[in-house]
């Protein structure tokens, strides 16, 4: 079943995130993907995540699709103006990529090319509108395309929303986001307000795929709280990590417990480990999903 069909089916969705290689060697990408075979419904491929330069996501998605994996291509507003965004999207569709995840993108100052010019010609809401236009067979300027795109577009969100962020979320829904992949959460309680807001969208209600980040250590949890916007590892989880004999196993257990709880609360989970997918299958098995 394709990711799009899965979204429509109402089945619980599992996605997992891989960064493209920092170089031309395809092996690490394929090895990581192999860990997700039969585990994830689709593999998210990041777009110079944290502004660290890597292989283009459309190329990495294409490599995976050629090897039988369905992908969700991330596309940020950071590196491309409206011409480049459109040609990238046309190319991606031409290579068989059907799912995209639209986001603003971390600023270049956060990455390994600090002096790069930040583009942000469009923002994420405007990019979603542009995708809708390409899907209808026209480009940004209204020129007719020889073959329209056929994307299922999603967007990202934090689960704790202030007034302005909630308005932006609603704009994304209006502009055609059919699913949301959220920032990582660590306790299910924090989700109910967010789901209530999503439910207000009525018939246009997008699917909610909640971010899961298995913790590796107490230090890892503290780092996330200090440095990553939208992440809040609660004190009780930090305490569990601190007191654990084997913190990595504890992190797996915490993630599995959370996934089990989320099955009845949202439409799917998105696994984004700090390092690799060594434990992703295990987490999902422990949660009773795979």
């Amino acid at each position: 079943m394709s990711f799009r069909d899965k979204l429509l089916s109402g089945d619980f969705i599992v996605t997992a995130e891989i960064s493209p290689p920092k170089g031309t060697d395809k092996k690490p990408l394929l090895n990581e993907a192999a860990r997700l075979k039969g585990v994830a419904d689709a593999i998210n491929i990041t777009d110079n995540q944290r502004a660290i330069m890597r292989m283009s996501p459309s190329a990495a998605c294409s490599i995976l699709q050629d090897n039988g994996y369905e992908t969700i291509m991330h596309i940020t507003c950071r590196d491309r103006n409206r011409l480049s965004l459109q040609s990238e999207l046309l190319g991606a569709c031409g290579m068989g990529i059907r799912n995209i995840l639209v986001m603003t993108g971390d600023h270049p100052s956060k990455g390994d090319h600090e002096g790069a010019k930040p583009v942000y010609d469009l923002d994420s809401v405007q990019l979603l509108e542009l995708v809708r236009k390409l899907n209808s067979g026209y480009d940004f300027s209204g020129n007719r395309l020889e073959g329209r795109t056929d994307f299922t577009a999603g967007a990202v969100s934090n689960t704790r929303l202030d007034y302005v962020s909630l308005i932006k979320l609603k704009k994304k829904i209006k502009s055609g986001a059919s699913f949301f992949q959220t920032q990582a959460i660590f306790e299910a309680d924090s989700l109910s307000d967010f789901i209530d807001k999503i439910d207000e969208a009525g018939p246009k209600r997008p699917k909610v795929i909640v971010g899961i980040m298995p913790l590796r250590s107490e230090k890892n949890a503290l780092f996330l709280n200090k440095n990553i916007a939208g992440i809040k590892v609660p004190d009780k989880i930090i305490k569990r990590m601190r007191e654990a004999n084997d913190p990595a196993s504890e992190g797996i257990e915490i993630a599995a417990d959370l996934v089990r709880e989320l099955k009845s609360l949202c439409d799917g989970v998105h696994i984004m480990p700090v390092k690799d997918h060594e434990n992703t299958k295990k987490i999902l098995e422990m949660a009773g999903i795979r």
Partner: protein
Amino acid sequence: MIISRQKEFNDILKNLAENDIFIIGCGKCASKLHVGGEPEVLEMEKKLLTSKKNIVGWNVISSACNIKSWEEILSQNPAIGKAQALLVMSCGGGVSVISGCAEIQTYPALDTESLGGTCCEETVKEQCGLCGDCVTWMYGGICPVSRCAKSLLNGPCGGAIEGKCEVYDRPCGWDLIYEKLKKLKKLEYLEVFVAPKDHTRNGRRTI
């Protein structure tokens, strides 16, 4: 007001190939910001003399970006005739106007940062993004192009931590926009979908 800062002196010296230099300061923004007024010009003269440059003269003209004619500048500053190069302590606008008229090599001593202003004796930077399509009325008078590090028009990026911009050491521009619109009872403006900027409006095409 154009916000500028002084270049590192060694960076100025590195490029300054000529020996006989005339220094031009600017009586407007650069003076107010204490980067190109009389005290700074005198300080620059002192440093250049120490570095074995010959300063043939200096003047703080009323406005480097607004001159009547080069002939007038020359008649008021005959020492320029003895100079091999000019060192201009003004914003990029002033440097360009001067170097467009002068027929000798011209060097900038400042780096131009942004378009800002002063309020209650405090310098405020990055008040305008020079987009050529001012929509600040929708944002409580706060320019999203310059005050948001990503120039986002439809809402924040979500990257701020405890109200602090993820890029710069300053508050999230979108928090400021929200607070101001709330105060003005105009929060409904936040709900408007704002289309991408038309970059033909920023004036560059008229050069």
